[in-house]
């Protein structure tokens, strides 16, 4: 959960485009069907003698396989669901879930932003309208990347408008 400062409001909550979830989980679906395809191919080979199996054994193995890959699919979805970029009027927060036991939360204050670049790469990204927003910062941090988000142009515009506001009204130095 994000704790907002007094008077701070959230402008954008962005997560990766659904196509990236589809792409990341495609491997699971391919792996899932391999044993079934393999088994069917074996059944159709006349010169291979199949052992006599209990009729429930294939169903048992298939259901165990399905159960485990179903859980794995939701682990991928969890990674997608918990990866969020939050743009407030004061900062950008990058919440990066890198697996079940690795979570990174980094914050970039608007006054540290120097430039914002947009990158849409490839046919699919162009057609579906997702891409990266690269935020250049002052100091050693270098670059802050908002990856694969829907409508990156809108996010870029919002960030730049907050940067301009901060440049015109810099926060008071205490």
């Amino acid at each position, binding site marked *: *959960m*994000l704790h907002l400062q007094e008077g701070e409001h959230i402008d954008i*909550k962005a997560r990766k485009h659904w196509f990236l979830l589809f792409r990341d989980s495609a491997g699971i679906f391919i792996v899932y069907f391999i044993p079934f395809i393999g088994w069917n191919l*074996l059944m159709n080979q006349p*010169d*291979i*003698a*199949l*052992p*006599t*199996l*209990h009729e*429930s*054994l294939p*169903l*048992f*193995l298939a*259901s*165990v396989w*399905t*159960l*485990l890959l*179903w*859980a794995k699919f*939701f*682990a991928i*979805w*969890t990674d997608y*669901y*918990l990866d*969020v970029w939050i743009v407030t009027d004061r900062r950008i927060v990058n*919440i990066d*879930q890198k697996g*079940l036991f690795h*979570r990174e939360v980094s914050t970039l204050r608007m006054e540290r932003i120097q430039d914002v670049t947009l990158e849409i790469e490839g046919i699919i990204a162009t057609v579906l309208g997702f891409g990266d927003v690269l935020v250049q910062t002052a100091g050693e941090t270098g670059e802050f990347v908002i990856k694969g988000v829907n409508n990156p142009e809108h996010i870029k515009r919002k960030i730049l408008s907050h940067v301009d506001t901060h440049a015109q009204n810099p926060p008071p130095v205490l």
Partner: protein
Amino acid sequence: MSDDNNLFLLPLDRLTPDILWYVFAGAVLVFFIYSIFLVYHWFRYGMNVLTSLLATIIYLGVSGIILIITIISFASLLP
């Protein structure tokens, strides 16, 4: 038909009830532990309670159906 063709299939017809128990118990244990971690993350770190709730219902609902099929097929395998 040569015997060599059967070799790689031998483990399937030699699965004893003991081995099946290990497969069943191992899979169910891994699934339960994994599920606890998943659901914990959805509610602990998720930004939207409704999405987390919907995900939990879909995940556990479908898992329940698969588990029932697993248990029924496993029970019918036992002598």
